[in-house]
């Protein structure tokens, strides 16, 4: 027999803190007594109802996030018991974390790599790639030398084009399951994002 598509996960139901009845894992509400449930251990992708993939539509991520926050945000529980308020806060906290991670291509890539056991941030080896280091230094120099808004703009638009290309590359890296390449591209995108941030700040100051 061949198994196709998504395997139904073998998870034991949790006991509802309120009515003690069974609650399927990752269900935010008890099916019996409707009490809000703690967020549990789900990863960011499954929390927002996605498969683990780099190719996500940000509009869809946002829509799912808003939909869930509408139901789970502490504002919906302001007049409820302290226990329900605490549980909803935990849910909203997990949703925010998932949203922030999945919305940003860089953080999404780093998180996907982390789920595969590959650390990209703070592993002390980020400058081991001489080509990348050289490119980063050149970009920094270009920004430092930019004196007029137009010059800064040109650095920004260059970096943006590169960041878009790096994001497209990441999509290919993950599609072909080349995690080493994905790690390299992720580091490159880290530099580019930082440069764009700095350039944007500088753009406002020279304006």
């Amino acid at each position: 027999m061949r198994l196709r598509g998504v395997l139904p996960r073998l998870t034991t139901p949790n006991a509802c803190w309120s009515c003690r009845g069974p609650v399927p894992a990752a269900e935010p509400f008890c099916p019996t007594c409707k009490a809000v449930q703690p967020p549990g251990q789900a990863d960011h992708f499954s929390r927002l109802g996605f498969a683990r993939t780099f190719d996500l539509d940000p509009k869809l991520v946002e829509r799912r996030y808003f939909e869930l926050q509408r139901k789970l945000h502490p504002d919906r529980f302001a007049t409820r018991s302290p226990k329900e308020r605490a549980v909803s806060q935990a849910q909203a906290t997990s949703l925010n974390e998932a949203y922030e991670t999945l919305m940003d291509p860089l953080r999404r890539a780093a998180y996907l790599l982390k789920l595969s056991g590959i650390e990209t941030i703070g592993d002390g080896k980020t400058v081991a790639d001489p080509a990348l280091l050289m490119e980063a230094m050149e970009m920094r120099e270009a920004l430092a030398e930019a004196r007029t808004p137009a010059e800064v703009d040109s650095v920004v638009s260059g970096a943006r084009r590169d960041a878009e290309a790096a994001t497209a590359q990441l999509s290919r890296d993950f599609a072909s399951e080349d995690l080493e390449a994905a790690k390299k591209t992720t580091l490159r995108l880290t530099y580019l994002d930082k440069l764009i941030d700095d350039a944007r700040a500088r753009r406002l100051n020279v304006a």
Partner: protein
Amino acid sequence: MTLLQLHEPGETPLPHEGDQALAVGIDLGTTNSVVAISAHSKPEVLRDADGNGLVPSVVAYTDAGPVVGSAAQARIVDAPETVIFSVKRLMGRGAADVKALAGTLPYKLDAAQGGMVRLLIGEKRLTPVEVSAEILRAVKAQAEQHLGREVTKAVVTVPAYFDDAARLATKDAAKLAGLEVLRLVNEPTAAALAYGLDQAAEGIYAVYDLGGGTFDISILRLEKGVFQVLATGGDASLGGDDFDHAIAEHWLADRKSELGSEPITSGEAKQTLKSARAAKEALTSRDAGDFPVMLRGKTTLHRLTRAELDRLIQPWVDKTIAICRQVVSDARLDLSEIQGVVLVGGSTRVPQVRRAVETFFGKTPLSDIDPDEVVALGAALQAEALTSGSETLLLDVLPLSLGIETMGGLVEKIVDRNTPIPVAKAQEFTTYQDGQAAMLVHVVQGERETVAECRSLARFVLAGIPPMTAGAARIRVTFQVDADGLLTVSASEKTTGIEQRVEVKPSYGLSEEEMARMLEESLEHGREDMERRLLIENRVEGQRVLLALRSALAADASMLDAGEADRIEKARQGLARAIEGDDRDRIKAAVEALEDVARPFAERRMDRAIRAGLAGHSIDEFKGDPGGCLAPDPEEEKS
């Protein structure tokens, strides 16, 4: 149809008591406070009898007790030393901050003891929390007056840029005033809510909020009922007050060059500031004017033109624009992506401010909703949403990064500013000495890299770390920020599971004992209030009983037995006397006595009425009557 329907006192339904709890929105401002309420998404400012919606955030401590609002303001002339205004600037502040503000606040401060600053008014040493609680009590009373019923729940707004200590101080003040805070909402977010729902706006908007003492700029995305803050920034001590000070100092410098040095009392300073404020307000619609300054009984007139005013306030206006720049950059946006800019706060009436905002954003700013009232209106909408349910969703962010002190007085950031809240972040730290048994955790808030330049929120010691070599212990520090922007920190050593949890309170907050004492005092008042309420309730009940009896006697006095009339009359007089007094137990007992003695009379009247009702009818007629008591209710039997 029972004649004497006697309630147990305390159970009398007060008007509307059965309704959903009433929740108001309160803008606790530096200069003015406003209270509003919303029903069916239509918010409305609750005004006083004269139609004023703004309650001046001024408190005067008189012999007869605290006075708030314009009555307090009026005392600046006669008893300036008893008057406190702009207390919001001191919320969550400590001795060090006050030094920075020294001279800008014309009242005596006692910062000697460390911790939260105290205001010295006569014999009193007051915390900003207590003074703010007086203002909140006054707006609460105004709302109750207007609505004719008690208000116990509120959404209170705070400047987006308020740090943890100032937020906590605000919440404590509300608690002291007898208000349950449903949520602290950031002022620009509240304003956006009022605009967004009013104008069905969509897209990215900036909210520029310049009040009396605080400046906030928030950038929000509005989409289908979601109000998502993308970035926020500001300055918790920059506002219209600074404009007033600049004008006053300018005039005093003029006088000095004319009349030489003069000592200035705190009362004279307050009056000069008042005059400066009047000048600033006058110059929003005029180009120039002459304004009085009176020191030591001698009044001088000072000319101020619009151009001069613009020059005097320019440094502060520039500062707000620099902050706008930073926040646009933090939101990762270009100016062209911002669809509109909304003006909030009384200080945005100053033409120079409007001009600067318009120039920077390249758009004509929106100010359709009164900038003094828009925040309270938004707060009221949120109060309604929290109590009655709503489709709108406010997603706010942390205004200032949170971190802890590491070696060498440096800050390790744990939660970055502009992270959506609620948020929880954890970080692991380790010991730096062999056998180190305890670790000091110093929590700070701010953007700078050294502890000295950030704000100290709390310190606590994680003790009982088992002896290990340096670097072996795993201490996990978790920061949890709730939807009010308030922080809870916990720390645990992972190999042993030793856990410590602290509510971030200490550095500039009230101590536990102080808060407990203040709450106890306000609860004592609460008990007094409750007593009074019960007394009134008992009186009303007693009067109602007397009235009912009178009607019954008027109709059916002929049914009284011999001697019964005397007994009832005696009990009636007993109750009438009890109502005159202040003893609610006596009233209660008198009501009961009258009820007992009149019961046979009431029963006879009932019997007769039933008999009269039955006469001429067959028993079958009553069988199908769901309200009748002759046949069992089939529905009731089932259940």
